[in-house]
């Protein structure tokens, strides 16, 4: 599936859900007659809203003449669909072989503990979502995690809290901190 990187764009953050839902209909219109059109339609809608709320799934089901349960089953089957809103920052933990043998499992456990969420979930304050991934080409510096577009190398389970803290700061003018770090790393 090529579209797994579609995520919500931050500029839509304040658009109310009702408004976003109205943008679902043209997508349905475009895909309902196409064979195999359900999955691309779901992906695009996830792109528009950022996730797939039940109201959107119902709308798509009725547009495609399918039952809610059937479409919900499809959504639940593919890991790239999310039915909960994503957080402002998406954390991805690499579970590729290299990262795995160098302790990615422990890193993942530490993150789950630190954020009190499971894979596929979002923190209550909607700041972080947690996902797992398969290799983002940082094998030499395993274990690696990604937060949004930033790759963090050689992550130690005991230090994950520090990494997240910096993203929390972003909100309160912490942007500069990160930018500074980024340029230092280059």
């Amino acid at each position, binding site marked *: 599936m090529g579209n797994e990187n579609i995520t919500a764009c931050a500029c839509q953050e304040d658009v109310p859900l009702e408004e976003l839902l109205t943008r679902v209909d043209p997508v349905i219109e475009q895909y309902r007659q196409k064979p195999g059109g359900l999955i691309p339609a779901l992906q695009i809608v996830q792109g528009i809203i950022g996730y797939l709320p039940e109201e959107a799934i119902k709308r798509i089901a009725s547009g495609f003449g399918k*039952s809610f349960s059937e479409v*919900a089953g499809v959504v639940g089957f593919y890991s790239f669909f999310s039915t909960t809103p994503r957080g402002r920052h998406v954390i991805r933990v690499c579970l590729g072989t290299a990262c795995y043998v160098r302790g990615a499992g422990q890193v993942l456990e530490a993150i789950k503990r630190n954020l009190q969420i499971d894979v596929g979930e979002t923190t209550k304050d909607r700041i972080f979502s947690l996902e797992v991934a398969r290799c983002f080409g940082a094998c030499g510096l395993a274990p690696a995690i990604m937060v949004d577009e930033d790759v963090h190398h050689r992550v130690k389970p005991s230090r994950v809290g520090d990494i997240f803290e910096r993203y929390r700061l972003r909100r309160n003018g912490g942007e500069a901190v990160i930018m500074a770090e980024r340029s230092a790393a280059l």
Partner: protein
Amino acid sequence: MPSLMINNETIEVPDGTMLIDAARQAGVEIPTLCYLEGIQRIGACRVCLVEVEGARTLMTACTTPVTDGMKVKTNSKRVREGRRTVLELLLSEHEGDCQSCVRNDDCELKKLAQLFGIEEVHYKGSKVPRKTDWSTSALVRDPGKCIMCRRCITVCNEIQNVGSLAPQGRGFKMSIGPAFEHPLSDVVCVQCGQCSLVCPVGAISERDQIEKVFEALDDPDKHVVVQTAPAIRAALGECFDYPPGTLVTGKMVSALRRLGFDAVFDTNFAADLTIMEEGNELLTRLKNALQDGKQTALPMFTSCSPGWIKYMEHRHPDMLDNLSTCKSPQQMFGAVAKTFYAEKIGKRPEDICVVSVMPCTAKKFEAQRPEMQASGMADVDVVLTTRELGRMIRRAGIQFQSLPDDTMDSPLGMSSGAADIFANTGGVMEAALRTAYEVITGRTLPFENLHVQPLSGLDGIKEAEVRIEGTQPEWRFLEGVTLKVAVAHALGNAEKLLQRIQSGESEYHFVEVMTCPGGCIGGGGQPRITDNATRLARIEAIYREDEGKRIRKSNENPEILQLYGEFLGQPLGEKSHHLLHTKYVLRNEV
């Protein structure tokens, strides 16, 4: 024709036969859990394993086509061990509490576990959490018992075109059920119970209300009456080991009397009443359309089947006007019992408890609809399915097989043969035609033995035409008109028929729809069946019951005439309107 050898016996089978059917033809039983004759063969449960010479692994008989010269063993050590392993794995993921399980009597999994001598389960499986779903009035779901055979999904999607159930989640967390593991009441479900009819285990079953009935019977202040639907008498016997198609009307009445009901009445009586109302409604609609040129919704659809009604409310809100406004026989009975009958015996409606025995789980839903309270109280208080009545009789220690025959009580117990055939697909239409034709022409319906042959049998959609000639003065406008009717059973077929009607491809005056395959005889509350042979046996039995009746037409039932004479006045009159007709509501589309 390929020939094959099954356990040293050679047989010939038609091209494309699957091993499972070939084995049955050779008199060899192969265990199954996911297979459904004519409906599903997906190789999911793997319990139908057989050994095919030359094949490396054991094969699933339900998905393996026969090839010429095949040599098959169905009872080798390897086969028995393979099946045993499969069963053990299923049991390891299954929340088994047979002692308190509603399926203890007829569980397919338990039966196979015993058959293959499983005494111990050697595996530890991951179980789906129980989270029992009590959200609907008709059904109870227990996902912990589900063995993922997918029969319910296929039946609900493909036969019923509803789609309430689907696999949710994936991997070890997968479960079968409504969207996002919501309660069933949150999604579109018509409560037909066809899923409960095919589920091999206790994962979906009728909501049991036996104790509620015992409670009413124990209450000295309640006058408890019972009505039994037309389809019960042709199926209840199966709960007591009679072969399918055995009529047990007389023993059923005896059993109900011994259970302590104050009066044993018949839904058939109300079926005759329905024909009087619905037949007149049809004639009125035809008069409006053909003579007075008024806007009238045609074709008129029958309204006896509550699953069908709910389906229309969810899916075809624009066609609700086409539904007859008549309540179903069950509800008409309740309304009459709590008014006409209550007055007769000097009781108030609140002193009377109406119990129904129905072939149908959706009737439990129908009975609690807020529209169904003509006397100010619920028309019907408790609905038992055929399966529940079977259990109740056994719980009371009544020896069904040795009961004498008894007859229904008066004044709500007499019925015509036309009422009996309400149980079969095509039967309501035939019953309506018997009366309507006679009202219009003054003559008997011109079909052999009063059976409208093209409307009977198990074809999904059936049609017939009746040309009307020699009309009575009042019905002149029908002179020379060819009345076109159609019949569909199972909602998937009904949907196809609806689309033909909406597209203008077909035109009818009157359409009968029954929610369940075969009609009420195949209802979701009947003794469990998964094959058409049983359906046909029950259908035959119902026609026999009809033919054995002295009166074959609803308009000749003396108790019905008495009810109109003493109480209702006339069909579609003021009182009928209030007691016997209803309205429909809009429901969520998905």
